[in-house]
């Protein structure tokens, strides 16, 4: 118990950081587009984005595992032409986590953008500003609570994932063995004291993360009251 291995936590946080950054870049234009469009295919896209919330992680994990492996055309292509293997390594974990956490980034951003005054955005267009400038200088700075929520919840949700990472990453120490998988293994070998410590750390970190989100949002809503 004295020489507890904290590497699974390090991998969990590294995975969450990569996932959050990549998803932010992908989800920002998508959520902006979803908030502004009246395209009739919007509900189809929204339903697709939200799928990971309702699907069992095993279903998601199975499809991702298949798609990334050598058995699928995509996996074979990536291996043959780029020499990139994507299963049972960290790269595969990041790709899988991006699918798994996608709705947690898109949904807060989209509802943040939707809550913005339409006139305010139009005022920016009339001022001669492009959609991109409006997004970066007007829309994004005015949805700070939604932005913070999206970033932190995506990070926390990735730290907390289990089923998908187990299926796609396995449990290779130092490569794909994240904290949640480590706890599962401790329980399996009946090392309850280690499982207790790991679990307590997870509970504490998760609580602090959520607490900081709620504190930030309540202060921010006070500051912008009356607008």
């Amino acid at each position, binding site marked *: 118990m004295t020489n507890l291995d904290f590497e699974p936590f390090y991998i969990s946080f590294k995975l969450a950081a990569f996932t959050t950054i990549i998803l932010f870049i992908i989800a920002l234009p998508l959520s902006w587009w979803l908030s502004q469009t009246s395209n009739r295919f919007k509900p189809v896209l929204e339903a697709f984005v939200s799928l990971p919330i309702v699907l069992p992680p095993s279903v998601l994990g199975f499809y991702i595992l298949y798609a990334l492996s050598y058995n699928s055309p995509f996996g074979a292509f990536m291996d043959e032409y780029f020499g990139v293997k994507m299963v049972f390594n960290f790269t595969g974990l990041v790709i899988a986590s991006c699918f798994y956490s996608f709705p947690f980034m898109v949904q807060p951003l989209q509802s943040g953008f939707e809550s913005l005054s339409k006139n305010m955005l*139009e005022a920016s267009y009339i001022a001669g500003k492009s959609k991109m400038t409006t997004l970066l200088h*007007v829309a994004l700075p*005015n949805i700070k609570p939604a932005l913070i929520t999206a970033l932190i919840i995506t990070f926390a949700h990735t730290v907390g994932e289990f089923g998908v990472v187990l299926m796609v990453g396995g449990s290779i120490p130092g490569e794909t063995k994240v904290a949640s998988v480590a706890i599962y293994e401790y329980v399996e070998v009946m090392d309850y004291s280690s499982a207790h410590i790991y679990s307590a750390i997870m509970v504490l970190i998760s609580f602090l993360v959520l607490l900081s989100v709620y504190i930030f949002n309540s202060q921010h809503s006070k500051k912008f009251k009356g607008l």
Partner: protein
Amino acid sequence: MIKLKIQKMLHGSIGQIELNVDINIKKGEFIALAGQSGSGKTTLLRILAGLESADGEIDVFGSKWLDAKKAFAPQERGIGFVFQDYALFPNMSVLQNLLFVSKDKELAEHLLELTGLTELKERFPNMLSGGQRQRVSLCRALMKRPKILLMDEPLSALDPDMRTKLQHDILKLHKEFDTTTIMVSHDPSEMYRLASRVLVLEHGKIIKDGLAKDILLKTSGSQKFTLQGELLEIKKADVIYVAIVAIGQQIVEIVLDSNEAKSFNIGQSVQVSTKAFSPSISHL
């Protein structure tokens, strides 16, 4: 000359109406656009701004903003627009709101000076009153030195004192910047004070077009004094009846006979007129 020839189907609260407007506007005119809600006033303004699509033609001083082939985006029109709800950028200070439109710091300082906002230029919109916010919005709309300034009920959310102050500001800026201004308004005194020409829109068509005094002064026949109001109550007092009518912010009593009393319904719009040959005026 601004030539507007626009058609568009509107789906309003009263069903489908066709917006069909064909007008010419001279440079430097100050136009007040009046009419009941749902008559297409705001839509007309938004079409001019490029925020909504329409069929027809818009020709602004020789440049075609809209025809069968193309429509300029709002970004390409270089207009100024003042929204009823201010639409300021909350993440920017007063000065930054202006500089976001154009980096001309001298013009920004000048506009703030003209509207008495210099002291407040570092403040953020959430620390301003409604009147101050609308003045910022007005300044921001002029940062591109627009040929056309569009205002959608800019003063309707403000109290009467603040309205009067802002009306002065609007007129001052309209003259100094030599813009052609179109303002949606419901307030006759505001239209009279500001506008050189009044257009009244009903069900998507212009039904009146003329000088403010010709359109706004309510006279009928030989009656010299005509006011519009809402009938609030009819009271019986001995053998006569007394109607209580709200005219603007004022409540007045008018004597009716029994036949007249029966012919009116509570809540209806009424006209109060009198042959006042020499009405008197005095200080309050």
